[in-house]
């Protein structure tokens, strides 16, 4: 590291050392707190125990019944992730418009034709409320949403869809809002100079710029959601998770491996679908 490349090693600043030693302390504290026993993990008992468990998984159960069960679960998981992601976009879009200040009450849209004080106060309030709602949606993990919805509408894949939609809606709403605030202002100025109304500037200036990024983020969250959909079943929200939960609880190890292979295939499929869609559309 002779200053030959543009990298900036952490140690060049005193604060870098401070941060690094902070992390060392954090790691030591965590090592003690989690009672990780590296000795038994690397040599001996722990490793043998684990190897024993994972060896029991083989071979996967490839009987017709197990395969059919895994297939049905995989299709259900796919459906949950797909509808959940679309619901998330439906929740995120209006909230993103309400949480982007440049759409709501300041910036180019409001240059020269200001809002009345009351109207502005109302809009600032709307912004704060929508922002708070997004925070709540995003903070509560999918699995907690799923528990709550199972409690409300009963077992099955439907509460899983709602859980993904609510949590991901919060995440996407935040990301979409940031995209809306970060669009290139020059096209908007050009539109404004022709006398376009606010709605027109939004429709023809802001949204066309934001749409590709919206799509890209939505596809990325779909990849996250297929993984989440595969575990929501642990709390009774359908899909592969429910079957995995049963397989683990009843010690059906060979079936468990079949289901894990199904998750692997679904995740790989959705990653590939999402990547190729992104390449072609964005």
């Amino acid at each position: 590291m002779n200053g030959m490349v543009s990298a900036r090693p952490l140690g060049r600043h005193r604060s870098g050392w401070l941060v690094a030693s902070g992390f060392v302390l954090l790691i030591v504290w965590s090592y003690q707190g989690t009672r990780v026993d590296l000795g038994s993990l690397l040599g001996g008992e722990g490793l043998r125990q684990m190897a024993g468990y994972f060896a029991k998984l083989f071979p996967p159960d490839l009987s017709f019944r197990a395969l059919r069960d895994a297939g049905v679960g995989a299709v259900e998981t796919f459906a949950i992730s797909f509808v959940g992601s679309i619901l998330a976009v439906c929740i995120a879009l209006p909230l993103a418009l309400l949480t982007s200040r440049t759409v709501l009450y300041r910036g180019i849209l409001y240059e020269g034709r200001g809002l009345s004080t009351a109207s502005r106060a109302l809009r600032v309030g709307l912004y704060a409320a929508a922002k708070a709602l997004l925070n709540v949606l995003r903070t509560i993990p999918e699995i907690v949403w799923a528990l709550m919805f199972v409690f409300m509408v009963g077992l099955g894949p439907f509460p899983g869809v709602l859980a993904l939609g609510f949590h991901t809606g919060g995440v996407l709403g935040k990301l979409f809002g940031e995209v809306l605030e970060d669009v290139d202002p020059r096209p908007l100025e050009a539109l404004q100079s022709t006398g376009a109304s606010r709605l027109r500037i939004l429709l023809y200036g802001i949204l066309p710029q934001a749409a590709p990024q919206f799509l890209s983020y939505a596809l990325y969250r779909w990849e996250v959601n297929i993984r989440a959909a595969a575990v929501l079943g642990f709390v009774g929200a359908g899909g592969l998770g429910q079957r995995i939960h049963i397989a683990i609880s009843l010690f059906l190890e060979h079936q468990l491996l079949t289901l894990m292979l199904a998750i692997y295939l679904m995740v790989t499929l959705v990653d590939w679908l999402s990547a190729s869609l992104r390449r072609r559309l964005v």
Partner: protein
Amino acid sequence: MAMIPSAERAGRFPASASKAAFPYLLAVVVLAALVGSLRIAQVDPRRFFEGDALGNVARFVRGSYPPRLSPEFLGLMLQPLAETVQISVMGTVMAVIIGIPLGLLATSSLTWSGVLHERGVRLGRLTLGFLPYALSRSILSAFRSIPEYVWAFMFVRAVGLGPFPGVLAIGVAYGGMLGKVYSEILENMDPRPLEALHAGGASKGGIVLYGLLPQALPNVISYTLYRWECAIRASSILGFVGAGGLGQQIELSMRMFQFDEVITLLAMLFLLVASVDFISGRIRARVVR
């Protein structure tokens, strides 16, 4: 003016009937998938108005106010809160321990192609380089495709309840992600310093140590910190399958219909996640300029 880029594009991707039909085809497929998925996922908003659904919502809302803020409850929850942080930190450390060797092996520019191997023997390069490369790639992909939640449940079975299976689950799942991203970072490095070192007669180890690692380090640190932010979210829900931390408390309170406790725990979770995001974001902004 507008003709030039479109002509260029047409030259790169020859326009054909199938390309022109793609958007329509895609729309039909997406619509069909949506209709099928709506049926399979049994989406039915009427279920909110059937039976006890609305009553349950009301019970939940009524039960969660006021949130439980008594000192003894908050005191009891400090330990699970600390445990969540500890699981996330140790899990990330373990992910790095798993991710670095596998990531190095999964880097094509280190194992079998590019500047480092211009002097190598072809056959040896393939057997000693390509096989470990392919093997570590598939291990990484298996590690990260199984959700950490499933890993946690399996590790609870393998090593028993407590924070340790949570650490292992995050370590394995995030090790798979870190390894993949490390290898991508290493493969996308500027090759010019490496070639300069190579021309200067540096050994392979020297090229890696002085050319590759200094370039990669900021991105590696930044991405690892980002994964830590994700790990804190993960470690807070792994408790649902018995792997310690706040999740276990949320699940217990939920099962006992103590919604006032659930709200408090969710607020604690929010504060925890927000502060970790803040700390990690500040450090990342300084590491990567």
